[in-house]
C-alpha cells in the first residue's frame, strides 16, 4: 500500500494559462458547475438570477445557457448531479433549514421532460436530518440510496427505459458510484460498525467479488468512481484510492482543517473536491494540489476541468465567468509551497 502526503501549492503556470485562454461570461446569473457531458461539450449546474433559481445547461462551445428546470424560492439548491446522455439527474434540496429534505429529478435532454423520481420523506412524514443523497445515472438506470426508515436505506434503481424500479440492497448504505465496469457502494456489516464494499456488474447487476485488497476497509464516508479508480474517504483527513484492475491502493493523508476530503470527483488521474472554504484539485500520482478560491465551483471529468467564478455571495447582482481547461494524461501537479 503506497502512501502520499497531501500538500498544496500554486496552480501550475500552464494550467492557469490554459484556463485564461477559454472563458465564457454569463452576465446576470450565478452558475455553479455540477456536472459535465462525457464529451465535455456541455456543463450542467445550479443557477441563480434575478428571476429565480433552478438547473441550467451551458453549451461550452457557444456560451449559451438554457434553463432545464426551475425550483421554488424555498428550495436550497442542488446537492449532486450526474449526466449520461441524454439523461440528467439531480438531487434538489427542498428546504433551507433541513439538509435531509430533498427530491430527485430526472431530465431527458431529447424530450425536455422532467420527472420527479423520489423524495426523502419517510412514511411517518419525517426526514432523516442530514442524510444527503448523491444520485448517479448510467447503464440505463438512475441509482441512489433512499431513506427507508430511521435505521435503514434502500439502494434503489430506476430503469430509464421501462420506468420500473427495483431495490438492490438495504441497510446502512452509502451512496453508490460507478467504478470501472461495476456499481459499487459501501455497507455496514449487520450489527457492527465495520464497513464493507459491495459490487455488482453495472450492466447485469450480478454480484462481483470485492478485491481482497479492499476486503476490510477503514471507515468509509464518501465514495467516488471512474473508469480507472475507486476512491473513498475515511473521514475528512484521509483518502484511499484503488487503481482498478490492480492491487494498488494509495492512501493520501496529511490534509489540514482547510482541506477536508469531501464531495470528491475523479477526473483522469486527478480528484477535485469542494473543501468547505475552497475548491481543490489534486494529482493522484503525486498527492500535490492547488486551490481554486471561492466564490464559485469546480468540476472535472476525464476530458476537462471547468471553473465557475461567480459574483460575491450575499451581494446584489449576479455574474459568472466559466473557464475551461482540457485535461490530458500528461498533465501533472508537481510542486507544493513550503
Amino acid at each position: 500500500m503506497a502512501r502520499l502526503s497531501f500538500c498544496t501549492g500554486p496552480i501550475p503556470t500552464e494550467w492557469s494559462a490554459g484556463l485564461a485562454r477559454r472563458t465564457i461570461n454569463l452576465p446576470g446569473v450565478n452558475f455553479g458547475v455540477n456536472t459535465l457531458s462525457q464529451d465535455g461539450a456541455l456543463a450542467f449546474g445550479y443557477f441563480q438570477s434575478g428571476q429565480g433559481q433552478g438547473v441550467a445547461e451551458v453549451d461550452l462551445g457557444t456560451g449559451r445557457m438554457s434553463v432545464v428546470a426551475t425550483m421554488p424560492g424555498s428550495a436550497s439548491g442542488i446537492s449532486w448531479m450526474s449526466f449520461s446522455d441524454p439523461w440528467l439527474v439531480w438531487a434538489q434540496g427542498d428546504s433551507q433549514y433541513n439538509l435531509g429534505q430533498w427530491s430527485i429529478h430526472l431530465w431527458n435532454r431529447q424530450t425536455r421532460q422532467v420527472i420527479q423520481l423520489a423524495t426523502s420523506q419517510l412514511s411517518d412524514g419525517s426526514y432523516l436530518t442530514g442524510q444527503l443523497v448523491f444520485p448517479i445515472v448510467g447503464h440505463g438506470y438512475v441509482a441512489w440510496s433512499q431513506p427507508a426508515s430511521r435505521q435503514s436505506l434502500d439502494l434503489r434503481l430506476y430503469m430509464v427505459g421501462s420506468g420500473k424500479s427495483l431495490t438492490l440492497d438495504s441497510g446502512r448504505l452509502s451512496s453508490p458510484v460507478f467504478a470501472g465496469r461495476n456499481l459499487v457502494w459501501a455497507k455496514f456489516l449487520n450489527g457492527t460498525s465495520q464497513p464493507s464494499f459491495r459490487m455488482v456488474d453495472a450492466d447485469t447487476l450480478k454480484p462481483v467479488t470485492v478485491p481482497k485488497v479492499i476486503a476490510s476497509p477503514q471507515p468509509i464516508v464518501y465514495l467516488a468512481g471512474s473508469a480507472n479508480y475507486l476512491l473513498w474517504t475515511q473521514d475528512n483527513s484521509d483518502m484511499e484510492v484503488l487503481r482498478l484492475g490492480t492491487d494498488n491502493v494509495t492512501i493520501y493523508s496529511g490534509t489540514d482543517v482547510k482541506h477536508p476530503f469531501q464531495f470528491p470527483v475523479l477526473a483522469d488521474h486527478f480528484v477535485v473536491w469542494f473543501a468547505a472554504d475552497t475548491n481543490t484539485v489534486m494529482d493522484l500520482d503525486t498527492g500535490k494540489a492547488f486551490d481554486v478560491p471561492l466564490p464559485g465551483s469546480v468540476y472535472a471529468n476525464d476530458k476537462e476541468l471547468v471553473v465557475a467564478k461567480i459574483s460575491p455571495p450575499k451581494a446584489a447582482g449576479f455574474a459568472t465567468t466559466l473557464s475551461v481547461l482540457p485535461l490530458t494524461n500528461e498533465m501533472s501537479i508537481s510542486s507544493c509551497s513550503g
Partner: protein
Amino acid sequence: MRVRGRRIAISRGSQRLLAFLALQERPVSRVHVAGVLWPELPDERAAANLRSALWRLRRSGAHLVDAVYYCGPATVSESTYTEGVPVDQPTAGSYMGTNSTDGTSASSMTSGMQHFVGYPVYGWYWYVWVGVPYYPSSNDLSTFLQNLQTDIYSGMPVASDAYEVAGGPHLNGHPTDQTIFHYVETAGWWNYNGEDLVYYADSATTLWSSVPPYSWLDAWTFVVILGGRGYIW
C-alpha cells in the same frame, strides 16, 4: 455508556478516547491525543487508531440525532448535554415554536438557550443574540472570538446561526450549491500555528452521514458563514 437514557455500546478504544477527552481542559490536537493513547506505536499507526476510535464513537449511536426535529432544537438539546439540564429535541422544539417552514427564529433560539441552558446554570439571563453583518470585518471576528472564549472558559456553549449561500464557504459536509440556514453548537477554540480555529458540533448527522458530527474550521471562515445572521452567547 448511556446517552439520553439509552444504553450505547462503545468499543474499548473509544472508551479510552472518551475518558481522555473528558479530562482535558482545552482543545487538544489529534497528534497529541494519538501520542498519549498509543505511545508505543509509530505516529502513523497511532493516528490510524485514533481515526478508527473516533469513527466508531460517532457510529455507535452516541451522537445520533432524533430524526424528527430540525437543527435549532437539536443544537439546544446538544447544548444542554454540555451544560444545563438535559432536554430532548421535541421539548426544545415545542418551547421554541420550531416549524418545518421557517425553522427556529433567532429570538426563539435565544429564548431556548436561555431557558434550557443559561438560566438553569446561572439562575439569570446569560444568553444574548449578536448579529454579524453580511460582510464581517476583522473587528467582528475579534469580538466573536472574545465572546466565544469567555463562554468556553465559563463552560457554556455558544449557539451559532449559519447562513451558507451557493458558491460561498460552507460548514463541513454541506454542499456548495445550496443556501442553508443552520444552527450549530460552538464549544471550542484553538490557536494553531497562529491561526484561530473554531470547534463546533453539527447535528445534521445520521445513518450514512457525510456531515461530520464535530469539526474544526478556520475562525474567519466560520464568521463569514455567520454573516447575515449571528450567534447566541
